[in-house]
């Protein structure tokens, strides 16, 4: 079976600054410059020492390798700060890995945060088209899929109302409906189910099953183990940026995640 995504030795380093003017201002440069050119003597040294900046390397991901087969449903588990979001951001091209290589077969569609790209002043209808375009869909395809999207989101009545008047639940439904109806080859979902109600969550799971049933690959991050148990056929567990488990035995993955 061919793979949809092959991740090889991916690492991601961030630099964290301590002290000084690390908030990103020109003063930071000026201070660094002064520190270099001025002789460190007497009171000046004392003065500059209080604004001393130090950098610390932080590895958000350490040497991660795994493979996802086409059509499989991968659950990503790990506690806050384990590196889940960083991994997804790298898979979506938003940020670059520091080292390693990822090979992707197919078009990636992602839903990292609900309503990203929704403009509050525009109506639901306008936002469907805008969001579709952001996710890389052709206008014609959006038109073709429009009824299906609206139908799925269950907000027909409000489709011509500005999105700023939507409840957060309505926004999630519409956002999910757009991303899920794009006919993605690889769908990446981050914590999207956290907002909707139980019925809608079930509907989403059904839709995701339908998507993966048609041969697409789904990557799914969720804190709720139930959804992963219900849906996924492969799971990886991350801890402090390292991959500690990659298995098709979902129960053991959940156990290892809960034990952390």
């Amino acid at each position: 079976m061919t793979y949809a995504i092959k991740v090889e030795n991916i690492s991601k380093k961030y630099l964290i600054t301590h002290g000084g003017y690390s908030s990103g201002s020109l003063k930071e440069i000026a201070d660094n410059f002064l520190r270099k050119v001025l002789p460190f003597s007497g009171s000046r040294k004392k003065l500059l020492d209080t604004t001393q900046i130090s950098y610390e390397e932080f590895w958000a991901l350490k040497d991660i390798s795994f493979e996802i087969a086409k059509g499989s449903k991968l659950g990503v588990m790990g506690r806050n700060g384990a590196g889940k979001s960083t991994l997804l951001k790298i898979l979506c091209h938003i940020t670059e890995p520091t080292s390693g290589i990822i090979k992707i077969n197919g078009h990636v569609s992602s839903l990292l945060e609900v309503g990203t790209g929704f403009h509050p002043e525009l109506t639901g209808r306008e936002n469907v088209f805008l969001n579709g375009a952001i996710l890389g869909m052709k206008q014609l395809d959006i038109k073709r899929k429009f009824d299906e999207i609206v139908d799925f989101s269950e907000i027909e009545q409000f489709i011509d109302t500005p999105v700023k008047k939507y409840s957060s639940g309505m926004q999630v439904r519409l956002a999910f409906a757009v991303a899920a109806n794009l006919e993605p080859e690889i769908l990446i979902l981050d914590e999207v189910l956290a907002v909707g109600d139980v019925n809608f969550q079930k509907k989403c799971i059904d839709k995701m099953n339908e998507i993966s049933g048609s041969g697409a690959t789904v990557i799914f991050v969720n804190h709720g183990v139930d959804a992963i148990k219900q849906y996924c056929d492969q799971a990886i567990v991350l801890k402090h940026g390292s991959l500690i488990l990659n298995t098709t035995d979902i129960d053991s993955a959940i156990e290892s995640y809960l034990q952390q």
Partner: protein
Amino acid sequence: MDLKVSIKHGVAEKMQIIEAGIQAKDYWKHLWARRELLFFFTKRDIVIRYKQTIIGASWVLIRPFLTMVVFTVLFGSLANLSSNGLPYGFVVFAGMLPWYLFSTMLSDCSNSLVGNRGMLTKVYFPRLIFPLTNFLVTLVDFFVSFTLLIGMMIWYQIVPSWEIIFLPFFILLAAILGLGLGLLTATLNVKYRDFQQIIPFLLQLGIYISPVGYLNQLVPKRWEIIYFLNPMAGIINGFRWCLVPGALALNWWGILYATFFSLASLYVGIKIFKRSESQFADTI
């Protein structure tokens, strides 16, 4: 991102490779592939302005019109500066159009990344689409306020001659200069927010050191070389000349310099932007 097309089992498959420091070989091709998104964003920004503000589009007309009235009273009536026999209001407006094109372009582009922080850290598409959206929106605004200039020329019965064909050149120069510097400052803004304060301040000064409220022909000959070091001086000079070539002289040094400066700033702007692009989501 690198796109490779390989043939497997008789089916063409796209294989994308993500790796550190990889710069797309098909950078412009990728951008072109997402042109629909660029037009969507442009349309969105224009639609929103009409929706949100009561005066909507007329805002694009009211702002330059009121500024023109103030400048005309200040420089024309009170200071009594020479206008080479042209109506002073026309002189000011013909200077303000290219100036506002440039300054809006620069300030909007420089905020285009920071202002779209949410999207920048959540979705991927060619980052150049953000400033390019501002580029198109500002051009649309320009053409809306351009109708006021046409109205003014009809009112004052100023008949353009063949030199008007060069007008698009100067419009483009002002736009390119604003975009080039805007790309540069947008990139810097990601890391150093100081530019959010610096740019409006510089533009406020710029309107006075550029020949907006007066004719550049008033500047003494010996100061001309220094005066035209500001590329907008040459662009405004050329813009006005296209409209009334009989009344105003062209400053060749200023125009050559402005052309070179604008192209160079676009080149440098794109280069710096492209080089920093992969870091945007991490540093913003």
